[in-house]
């Protein structure tokens, strides 16, 4: 790789490094800016007088004697009870991931070991579902939910999210299981295992990488969803994302927007941690989809 002919000319090297830096600023700066700004008062974060106020916090100093304040966080978490929404989000995410992985591993395993006539239809449904805006389906779910009085509660939302997510999960796990050689469970069966025992003792120990990757994507889907949760949940059951939208929608009073800023920063933290620990799996999952899809 390091032969002289392949070395970049200095000009190009500088150019490409500069480009990477510009990209990094584009990607990271909005988050850093919002994080910094969430500790200010609104008049600093949206500064009419001078944009440097947002950095130094002139107005915040005037109001609280310090350049930083937790007022936005206090408002969001204590005053507005954001914790309740956080708990709801994690309930939804947990059950969506759990259900889709259970169905996904069992179904994906079964499909990968049967003849591949299903796989085409599975791929097509996964594709169509990937393509359809979730909100088009919400319109279909809503009337029955109203009729049966199921609207506005968490379990139905979880079911809808699982349904939207399932074809994708099945497809991903199916192609993952196909990479596990058939000989593995065949040899287990030769040793006297039943099909289920083979799955339990031979496949489960080796399936974790694929399951974790798929679980991550299910989690992201459930966590990031706005269309389904905002339409199908009643006000007292809202998850984080619709609640943030609601902070903005309610009557405009000073400081209210800072609640939303603080809530946004709080909602970003779990994702940040997720990327930090599971970067390799996310990249792996994305590229696996590209190679096989």
């Amino acid at each position, binding site marked *: 790789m390091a032969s002289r*002919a392949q070395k*970049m000319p200095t000009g190009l090297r500088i150019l490409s490094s500069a*480009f*990477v830096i510009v*990209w990094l600023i*584009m*990607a990271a700066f*909005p*988050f850093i*800016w*919002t994080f910094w*700004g969430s500790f200010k008062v609104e008049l600093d*974060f*949206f*500064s*009419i007088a001078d944009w440097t106020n947002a950095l130094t916090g002139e107005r915040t100093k005037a109001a609280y004697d310090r350049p930083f304040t937790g007022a936005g966080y206090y408002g969001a978490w204590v005053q507005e009870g954001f914790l309740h929404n956080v708990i709801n989000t994690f309930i939804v995410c947990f059950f969506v991931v759990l259900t889709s992985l259970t*169905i996904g591993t069992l*179904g994906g395993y079964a499909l990968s070991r049967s003849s591949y006539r299903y796989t*085409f239809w599975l*791929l*097509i*449904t996964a594709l169509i579902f*990937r*393509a*359809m*805006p979730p*909100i*088009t*389906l919400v*319109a*279909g*779910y809503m*009337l029955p939910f109203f*009729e049966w009085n199921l609207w506005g509660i968490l379990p139905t939302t979880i079911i809808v999210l*699982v349904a939207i997510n*399932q*074809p994708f999960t099945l497809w991903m796990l199916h192609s993952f299981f196909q990479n596990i050689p058939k000989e593995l469970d065949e040899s287990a069966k030769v040793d006297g295992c039943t099909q289920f025992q083979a799955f339990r003792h031979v496949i489960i120990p080796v399936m974790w990488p694929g399951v974790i990757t798929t679980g991550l994507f299910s989690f*992201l889907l459930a*966590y*990031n969803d*706005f*269309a389904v949760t*905002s*339409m199908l949940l009643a006000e007292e059951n809202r998850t984080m*994302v619709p609640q*943030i*939208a609601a902070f903005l929608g309610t009557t405009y009073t000073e400081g209210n927007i800072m609640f939303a800023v603080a809530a*946004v920063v709080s*909602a*970003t933290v779990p*994702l940040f941690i*997720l990327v*930090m620990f599971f*970067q390799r799996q*996310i*990249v792996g999952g*994305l*590229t696996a989809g*590209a190679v096989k*899809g």
Partner: protein
Amino acid sequence: MFLFIAMPIVSVLTQSVFTPHEAVFKEVETCTPLVGCTTETSIDQDATRALRDAQPLGRFVGLDIYFNRGHLAVAEVGELWKTTESWGAFLDGLGNLPFYRAMGFTLTFTFLVTPLVIAFGLLVALAVNALHARLKGLVIFFSLLPFVITPLIGALVLFWMIDSRGILGSAVQWLASDPGLSLKASTGMMWIALIVYGVWHAAPFAFVIFYAGLQTLPQDQIEAAQIDGATRWQQVRYVVVPHLMPLVTFVALIQLMDNFRVFEPIVGFNASAHATSLSWAIFNDLGGETRQLSSAAATSVMTIIGVAILLSPVLVRTWRDFKGKT
């Protein structure tokens, strides 16, 4: 599983051909001495309820909802076609009809963002690939952030920055030396902002895929090209890009689908006055006090048809591949 997939689609289809009953009116004549008689029209609650119970789905109206002003607006378009002279005026008039307005933005967004994302992602991938190995992990970490972020939150974060009092908004005002300039006020600026958001959000996805593709780039082909005297640009053009072509198709497909359902940024940017998309139209119908289910359902059906048209080349190709295999 198929129950959950098929049922809502059937439900959407049914809803889209029905509309809620109109209230039954009754006329009541009240006579008071000295003043005389007055007839009042009021809603006959019992009769209305009876009718609603008899047919819970509502009146069957066939395809009427599809053709009314809120959707395909056949009558209005025909009228417009007859009265306007030039194409420009025709399209202008079309832009005032809600469905075509949403369609116009959705298509513009889809077909502008997709190529931009591919080009930008490729550039970032090439640049990162030339970096020192230690730095790559860090760069990938930060690059992933705009992609995994909740779309609504990402849109809000950018929106607060481009607010006329936010940092980017101020910067734009300063660059244009026009202190009254506001992104929120102008349709063109809003569209640009939405498209910038779209690229910002999706570029990491393209970048990661292309970057992975670059790792499998055959070195001997690059060397052969160098021996033949290819310049750096020619190497990229004739060796790297053809190698990545299947990935480009994949990214283009995913991006077409994702951008077609653009929705969150419009809510986040509060941009519905300047740009609406099909998804947003459904959301708008469903939300609010009235909950116009049938109108939303009709738009949903048309969105599904739109997706099907968009996907049909891919579906046909997959079908052929599948046939070829058996």
